[in-house]
């Protein structure tokens, strides 16, 4: 593949951002159109890539590789495999939807969409970079635009948006400091061992790191990626952050940005440090389970919709961790798929909450009620997201969750039961929120609300369609993911403990 498809995909939003910079300030519609065009291009390309990816062949495809920094062994190495592909698609689905979810932004639209485009491009970059260094370059690109978007366009509730934004930013950055330290150490060690600097994931994966070293490094990476993934107890930025952020940011952050944590955990930590992974897996599982249960319980106590979804996403990331910790094909498949599923679902959720907030100026559940009558389409979107959140079969998140359960149940047995029990609590809070927001007697003050229409429908249509299609045809997702997970599992197989099995063989 000579044509640099991925680079173009990456550049499209950046070019849109560049165009936006030179547009006049008050052409709001134009800003939105440009942003939509930019993200649409990326979406179209990533759809093309997704469906033309050769699943039988597997491995890295659409590869572009240019030497970049010789003494660090860095190359501009872009490519997609079964792991990155769903994430790429997810990014663009959500990026595209986020533009439309922000359709009603009135204040300083130009800056808003410039930052949004940078955000989308940054996230995209992490998923298609196959070189650790390039990955890191993109890893934090997004933090600052997010901060600015939160403080300018965000909203304050329990905490001020300034606090939320700062907490989010600093928390993630400090987490990433651990990651960076481990990356540098890994690199130095790899040069020591092989003598040849190579920063590509593949190259690092081939280095036989000493086991003790792997164990230390994995822990650091776990802290780094774990805080991004809002692993319990490193999650406390998450609910506050989402609550403070404007809709588009919440969508992208909960939808894809968080997933970088899980993605990195698999792509870097597990792949390069398999012995470390094997060592820490039970620990991760415990944290994952704790996260599931704890965040679900916290979500139950929430009255603010965004907090609710914020805690809910912490809870869902617990499942992802659990899947990763299972360290078997099924678990990791499920983890990746669940990241995709949760991304779509959370984005839809946040976009709907965003519309609700925009229209009613409140997210406080007791102040809402009966909206299903007044804004039925919004209610449909909300309920779809809610149902996906509680893992309703037929929507995208059930099969991934099931897969995670299979994978983790196999390894952790009864421990996993706690996590599975989380689905009950999830159902409880999600349904309560849905019921108290949408159902019940309609309130007079909301009688003249306008239902979402036109461009506002895009998030619902796009993400809703993915929710349903992914739920009905999970193989669309799993075949791709599996083609990426299999090589990783084959690579790390030697380091893994034999599975704790229930009963005899299976």
């Amino acid at each position, binding site marked *: 593949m000579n044509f640099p498809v991925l680079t173009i995909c990456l550049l499209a939003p950046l070019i849109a951002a560049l165009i936006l910079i030179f547009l006049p300030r008050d052409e709001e519609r134009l800003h939105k159109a440009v942003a939509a065009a930019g993200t649409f291009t990326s979406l179209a390309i990533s759809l093309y890539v997704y469906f033309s990816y050769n699943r039988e062949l597997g491995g890295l495809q659409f590869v572009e590789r240019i030497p970049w920094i010789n003494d660090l062994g860095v190359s501009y190495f872009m490519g997609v495999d079964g792991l990155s592909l769903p994430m790429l698609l997810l990014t663009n689905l959500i990026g595209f939807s986020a533009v439309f979810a922000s359709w009603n932004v009135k204040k300083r639209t130009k800056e808003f969409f410039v930052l949004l485009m940078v955000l989308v491009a940054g996230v995209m970059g992490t998923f298609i970079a196959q070189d650790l260094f390039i990955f890191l370059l993109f890893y934090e690109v997004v933090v600052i635009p997010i901060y600015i978007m939160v403080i300018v366009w965000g909203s304050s509730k329990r905490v001020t948006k300034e606090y939320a934004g700062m*907490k989010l930013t*600093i*928390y993630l950055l400090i987490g990433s400091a651990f990651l960076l330290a481990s990356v540098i150490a890994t690199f130095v060690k790899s040069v020591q061992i092989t003598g040849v600097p190579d920063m590509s994931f593949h190259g690092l994966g081939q280095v036989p790191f000493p086991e003790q070293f792997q164990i230390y490094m994995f822990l650091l990476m776990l802290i780094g990626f774990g805080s991004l993934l809002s692993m319990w*107890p490193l999650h*406390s*930025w998450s609910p*506050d952050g989402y609550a403070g952020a404007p809709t588009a940011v919440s969508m992208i952050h909960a939808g894809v940005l968080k997933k970088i944590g899980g993605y990195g955990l698999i792509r870097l930590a597990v792949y390069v440090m398999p012995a470390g992974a094997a060592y820490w897996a039970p620990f991760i599982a415990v944290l994952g389970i704790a996260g599931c249960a*704890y965040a679900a*319980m*916290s*979500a*139950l*106590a*929430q009255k603010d919709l965004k907090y609710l979804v914020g805690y809910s996403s912490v809870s869902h990331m617990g499942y992802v961790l659990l899947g990763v910790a299972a360290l078997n*094909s*099924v678990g990791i*498949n499920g983890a990746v798929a669940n990241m995709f599923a949760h991304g779509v679902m959370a984005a839809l959720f946040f976009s709907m909450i965003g519309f609700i907030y925009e229209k009613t100026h409140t997210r406080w559940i007791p102040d809402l009620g*009966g909206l*299903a*009558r007044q804004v039925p389409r919004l209610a449909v979107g909300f309920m779809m997201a809610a*149902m996906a959140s509680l893992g*309703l*079969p*037929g929507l995208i998140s059930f*099969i991934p969750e099931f897969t995670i*359960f*299979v*994978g983790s*149940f*196999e390894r952790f047995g009864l421990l996993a*039961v706690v996590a*599975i029990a989380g*689905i*009950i609590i999830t*159902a*409880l809070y999600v*349904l*309560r929120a849905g*019921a108290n927001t*949408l*159902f*019940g*007697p*309609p309130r007079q003050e909301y009688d003249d609300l306008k239902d979402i229409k036109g461009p506002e429908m895009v998030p619902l249509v796009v993400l809703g369609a993915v929710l349903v299609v992914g739920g009905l045809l*999970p*193989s669309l*997702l*799993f*075949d791709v*993911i*599996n083609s990426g*997970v*299999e090589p990783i*599992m084959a690579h790390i197989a030697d380091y893994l403990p034999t599975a704790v*099995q*229930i*009963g*005899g*063989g*299976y």
Partner: protein
Amino acid sequence: MIEFAMHHAWLVPLLPAVAFVIIVFLTRPWPRLSSAVSIAFMLASFVTAALAAYGVFTDPHFKHHPLIYTVRWFGMQGLNIDVGIYLDPSSAMMIFMVSLVALLVQIYSTGYMKGDPGYSVFFSYLSLFAASMLGMVLSSNLLQMFVFWELVGLCSYLLIGFYSFKISAREAAKKAFITTRVADFGLLLGILAVQIIFGTLNFDELTQMAPNFENYTTAGMMTLIAVLLFIGPVGKSGQFPLHVWLPDAMEGPTPVSALIHAATMVVAGVYLVGRNMFLFAEVESALYLVAVTGAFTAFFAATIAVTQREIKRILAYSTVSQLGYMMLALGVGSLTASFFHLWTHAFFKALMFLAAGSVLHALHHKADVWEMGGLIKKMPITGWTFVIGGLAIAGIPPFAGFWSKDEILLAAYQSGHYFLFLLASITAFLTAFYMWRMIFLAFFGEEKPENHPHESPANMTVPLVVLAVLAAVGGLIGTPSTPLWQQWIYYGHPHHIEPNVIIMLSSIALAAAGIGLAYLLYVRDKEKTNAKDLARRFQPVYKLLYNKYYIDEMYQWFTRVVVDGSARITYLFDIYVVDGIVNGSAAITKGLGSVMRYFQTGKVQTYALVFYMAVLVITVVLAFTDASSSVLVMGGAE
């Protein structure tokens, strides 16, 4: 044609699903069109189902070799899941029954729901429900079954909450969903365990493996799996102690109660246990649990039903009770009896609900039977069909319910669970009593002047009549003299239970006694003084029953105090401890900065002082710690 239907049985669930999509995306603005689409597709589905069922029931080959065809759904190393169709006599019977009832209910709904603003939506939900239910019935593996299982749950949720602006409907829907969700947790665990132990979820493979389960796991684990799997049905089929949602589910429109909460969805649990008989049959104790749960539920619900006042609630408890019967039958190992009762119950209970709906329709949703009376005169079709249903459920021959209930009692008796048999028999008496109590109160006796009932339109009465016919004759295929049912639907090998005349007669007697007592209390005694007297005399018992043993209150207490309380505690822990640590370290960092800046006094000689102090410290530390300097060497050996 028949061949086509059998090999395209996936059309049976697909057709209503298509109807759902069409209504949602195209015809929603046109209510009549929507209902037409829905009914047309349902009819097509019914025809296909009927043909397929006909195909199955004409070829004995299928008794032991179900027709299975699957396609890959998704998979990876270690987990491969197919979707497919599993057509055997049981599922053939089910799709026939479900599609028929669904069709009738849809027709009925054109009348009942007329003018409702959510008319199209209602039909779309009904279609979706039919699709899910049929899909569940035809599932070829446990996961697929679970998927549809949950989807019917969703439809149930949506339909219970159809009048979502009513707080009661909203709460009932939520309750239904969450209660069944709790149960599904167990089911899911069971499925996971099956997957992990046997490596497959396909029924056909599992059927082969289950008898040799020792190769895979221990008996204890098998029991555990069976119990876990049973938890799902406990929730879905309203068994004690997860029955609480079912009576509340009556907040939905009455056709929904008829279709979902009487005839089809609630029997899904029974069907699931039946479908997995190969697992349950291997572990005696699990089966016994099923039996006990069933019998107790049957009795327990019946006692509650005795005191209830709202027509649909009485029917709901009766449903719970009848579901208990079915479970009991399964538990004593008679799939035949269980499914037979499932089949007959579907007709008479659907009939009664629809008739009740007709009544409510006429009385503008006045539900208390005590405020009705003499309706049979104004609403003859509704009334008499209801009576047929009442006879059927009470177990009066030759109505359908008699045969199936008799089969159950017989099975219970013959399996040696005499106590359960006794319980079931008492329940039969209670059933007859409370059912006829309702009928007498509502349809006979004096008319209430404030009511202005009128007979419902034809599109509502025709389904009633059809169902009444089925309720009357539906059991005739399983009488001791014509044991067609017993020859087709069974687990393992056909049961040839010798009819036991004593049991038959005693059950008739109990039914008659129940009806008679109801007659005495509520028809003969015009002022109902005796009934009221009884209620007063046994005030504590009456209150206990009337308040459904306070189980709802217990659950409410549990959720409010235990669940919400611990949620609250978790949240407080989160914002004060977890977040407190975060904010605390931030505050410490900031505080350090703010404090230390005051060392920066702005006085130049202070800076110089610090400077040389540092020089001193460095010198001293280096001189006295550094091994490479010769200072230490001098002080040491040299």
